[in-house]
C-alpha cells in the first residue's frame, strides 16, 4: 500500500515535470521562430530582388546595365512589339544619386559636426537638453514633408535667386533636393558624432588644457582626431541614408536622366526611377518593370556595403575607449 502510494506521487511529479518541459520547449520554439522572421525578411529581400534582377539581366546584358551611359526605358505599346526595349544604362542614375547625396553631405557635414561639437563640448546641460531633441526632430519629420517643402518653397527660391543673377534654373533641381536632404541628415550626423565625441576620455582634454591649449585647439587637435573613426562612421551612415532616400528626390529632383553634374539641372536618381517604373501601369515581365528590381539590388548593395563598413568602424572605435 505504502509503496503504491509513493509510486503514484512519483508518477505525478514526473508527469508534471514532463508537461512543463514540453511547455518550455514550445515557448522556446515560438521565440526562435519569431527571431527567424528578421532573417527571413533579409532572405526575402535578397532573393526577390536577385530573382527579378536575374530575369532582367536575361533581357538586358549585365554590363550594359552597369556601365551603360544612357537611361531611357521605353514602354512597349503593344506586348507583341519588338525592338522597344529602350536603354537601361544605370550610370546616369548613379551620378544623379551621387550628385544629390554629395550636395546633401556638403550641407549636413559642417552643420551636423559643428552642432555635435558645440553640444558635446560647449553647451550647458540645460541648453543641451532642449537643443538635442529639437535637432532630432529633424530626423522624425516624414520625408514626404521635406519633399513637399523642397518642391514648393526651396526650389522656387533657388530659381528666383538664379534668375536674379540671370541664370536659368529648372524648377526641379538637384540643388533643391540636395539642400533639403542635407537638413534631414543633420541629426544623423550630429547625434552619433555627439556620442562619439563624448566617448573621448576627459583625460585627453585635461592633458591638452594642462598644456595651455584653448578649448578650440583641444577640440580640433585632440578630441576630433581621436574621434575621427567614429565620426567617419556617422558620415558613412548618413551617406547611406542619402542614397536610399526616396520621397525628397521623387518630389523635388525630377525625372531627367542626364549624365550631368550641374546641380541646377533636374536630375534623376535610382530611387526616383524605381518609383517611376513601378507606379502607374505595368506589365510584370517587361524589362522596364524588372529594371526596377535590378536598380533596387544595386541600391541595396551600395547602402548595405556602406552600412557594414560604418558599423564596423564605429564598433572598433567604441571598443578602443570602452
Amino acid at each position: 500500500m505504502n509503496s503504491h502510494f509513493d509510486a503514484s506521487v512519483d508518477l505525478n511529479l514526473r508527469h508534471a515535470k514532463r508537461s512543463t518541459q514540453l511547455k518550455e520547449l514550445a515557448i522556446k520554439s515560438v521565440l526562435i521562430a519569431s527571431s527567424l522572421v528578421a532573417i527571413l525578411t533579409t532572405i526575402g529581400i535578397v532573393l526577390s530582388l536577385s530573382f527579378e534582377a536575374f530575369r532582367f539581366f536575361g533581357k538586358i546584358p549585365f554590363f550594359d546595365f552597369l556601365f551603360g551611359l544612357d537611361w531611357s526605358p521605353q514602354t512597349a505599346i503593344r506586348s507583341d512589339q519588338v525592338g522597344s526595349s529602350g536603354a537601361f544604362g544605370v550610370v546616369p542614375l548613379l551620378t544623379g544619386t551621387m550628385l544629390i547625396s554629395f550636395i546633401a553631405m556638403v550641407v549636413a557635414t559642417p552643420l551636423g559636426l559643428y552642432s555635435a561639437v558645440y553640444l558635446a563640448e560647449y553647451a550647458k546641460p540645460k541648453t543641451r537638453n532642449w537643443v538635442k531633441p529639437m535637432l532630432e526632430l529633424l530626423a522624425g519629420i516624414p520625408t514626404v514633408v521635406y519633399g513637399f517643402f523642397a518642391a514648393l518653397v526651396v526650389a522656387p527660391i533657388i530659381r528666383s535667386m538664379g534668375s536674379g543673377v540671370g541664370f536659368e534654373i529648372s524648377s526641379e533641381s538637384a540643388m533643391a533636393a540636395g539642400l533639403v536632404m542635407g537638413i534631414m541628415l543633420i541629426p544623423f550626423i550630429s547625434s552619433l558624432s555627439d556620442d562619439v565625441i563624448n566617448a573621448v576620455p576627459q583625460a585627453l582634454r585635461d592633458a591638452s588644457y594642462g598644456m595651455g591649449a584653448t578649448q578650440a585647439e583641444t577640440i580640433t587637435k585632440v578630441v576630433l582626431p581621436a574621434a575621427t573613426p567614429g565620426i567617419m562612421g556617422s558620415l558613412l551612415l548618413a551617406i547611406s541614408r542619402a542614397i536610399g532616400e526616396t520621397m525628397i528626390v521623387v518630389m523635388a529632383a525630377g525625372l531627367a536622366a542626364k549624365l550631368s553634374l550641374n546641380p541646377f539641372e533636374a536630375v534623376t536618381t535610382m530611387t526616383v526611377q524605381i518609383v517611376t517604373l513601378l507606379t502607374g501601369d505595368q506589365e510584370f515581365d517587361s524589362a522596364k518593370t524588372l529594371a526596377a528590381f535590378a536598380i533596387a539590388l544595386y541600391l541595396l548593395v551600395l547602402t548595405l556595403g556602406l552600412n557594414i563598413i560604418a558599423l564596423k568602424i564605429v564598433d572598433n572605435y567604441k571598443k578602443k575607449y570602452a
Partner: protein
Amino acid sequence: MRDLTLNTSAQMQKRHRKETRFKWYGRIAILLSLAFLVFMFAAILLRGMSAFQQTKIGLDISFNEQVIDPAGTRDPGDMARANYKPLISAGLAEVFPEVTERREKNQLYKLISNGGMFELGQMVVENPELIGTKQTIWLSASSEADLFMKGKIDAKVEEELRRFKDRDIAWFNTLKDQGKIKKKFNTTFFKSGDSREPEMAGILGAAFGSFFSLLVCFVISFPLGILTAVYLEEFAKKNRITDLIEVNINNLAAVPSIVFGLLGLSIFLNFFNLPRSTPLVGGIVLALMTLPTIIIASRSILRSVPQNIRDAALGLGASKTQTTFHHVVPLAMPGMLTGTILGMARALGETAPLLMIGMVAFIVDIPKGITDVATSLPVQIFLWADSPEKGFVERTSAAIIVLLVFLVLMNLFAVYLRRRMERRW
C-alpha cells in the same frame, strides 16, 4: 631666465579670437538647423491653416418635391441621386435675376462647388422634412471662389491669366455685400475621402488607410519584436547563429525603405497574391520595416532590468521561461511598448514602400477594413502635392499639419508612458 609673465601676448590673443570664432561656428550651425526647422513649420502652417476654413455661399433653396422625390416614396437612395442642380440654379437666379443667358448662367453656377448637389442630397436624406420648404442653405463655394475669398487669387493679375474672371469677382462681391458669403470651419476636409475637386477633398479616407495599416503593423511587429528581443536577450547563447541574427537586424535597420516596398510587391502581391493597394499588405511591409527598430529598443530595455530580479525568481525555483515571462517581461513591457510606439510613429510617416504596393491611387471611398483599397496620410500628401489645382496646395499643407499632429501625439504618448512607468532600479 624664463619668461614668467602671465599677461597675454599677441599670439595668445590671436588664439583666443580663433576660439571665439570656433564657438560661434557651433552656435551658428545649431541656429541654422533650428531656423530651418522653424522656417519649414512656419511655411507649412502659413499655407495650411487656411484650409481648415472653407468658403460657404448662402442661397435660398426651395426644396421642390417635384425635383427631389416626384414619386413621393421618400426612398433615401432616390433622394440622394436626384438632380439638385435646378434647385441651386433657382437659388442663384433669385440673387442674380439679370443673368439669363445660358452660357452666363453656367458660369454663374460655377461659383458653387460641384459638390453642392451632394451636400443638398445629403441634407435631404438626413432630414426629409426639408422637402417642400424654403431655407437658406450654406453650400460650399467652388475652389476658385474659395481661393479668392482667402485672398489667394490676385484680382490685379491680367484676366486671361486667372481662372476667376472679372465677372466672377463682381458676382462674388455682390453675394458678399448681401452677407451671403462666409467662411466656416472646413468639416469636409475631415469627413471626406479624396476628390478631384479641392474643395470636396478630405483626409478621412487616408487617415483610415493609415489607421488600418498601423493596426496591421502593430499586430505583427509588436509580438514579433518583443519575442525576438526576449529570445536574443534572455535565451540565446552567444554563438555564430545569434551573432548572425544580430548583424542581420542591425543591417536590416539600414535598408532603404523603398526596398521593403519591392519586397512587398514581389513576395506579398505577386507571389502570395494578397490584395493590392490594401492596408493589409501595407501593414505587413511597414511591420517588417519597423521590426528591427522595435527589437533593438526592446533589447536595451530588457538589458536594463536588473539581474537580481532574474536571480531571485530562479532562486525560488521558477524555470527560465517562468522567470522571463512572469518577472522580466512585465517589468520591461512599458519600455518595450514605448519603443514600439516610436517605431509606429516612424511607420506612420513612411511613404515610399506604400507606393510600391499600389497604395497610391485615387480613392474616394473611405476604407472599412484592412482589405479595402486605401491610401495613407503621407501618400495622400504626395498625391495632392502632385496635383496641378491650386486649391490642393493649402490642403496638402493642412494634411501635413494633421500628419504632424498625429506624430506629435504618438511621441507624447510614448513620453508619457515612459514617464509614468519609469522604474528606478
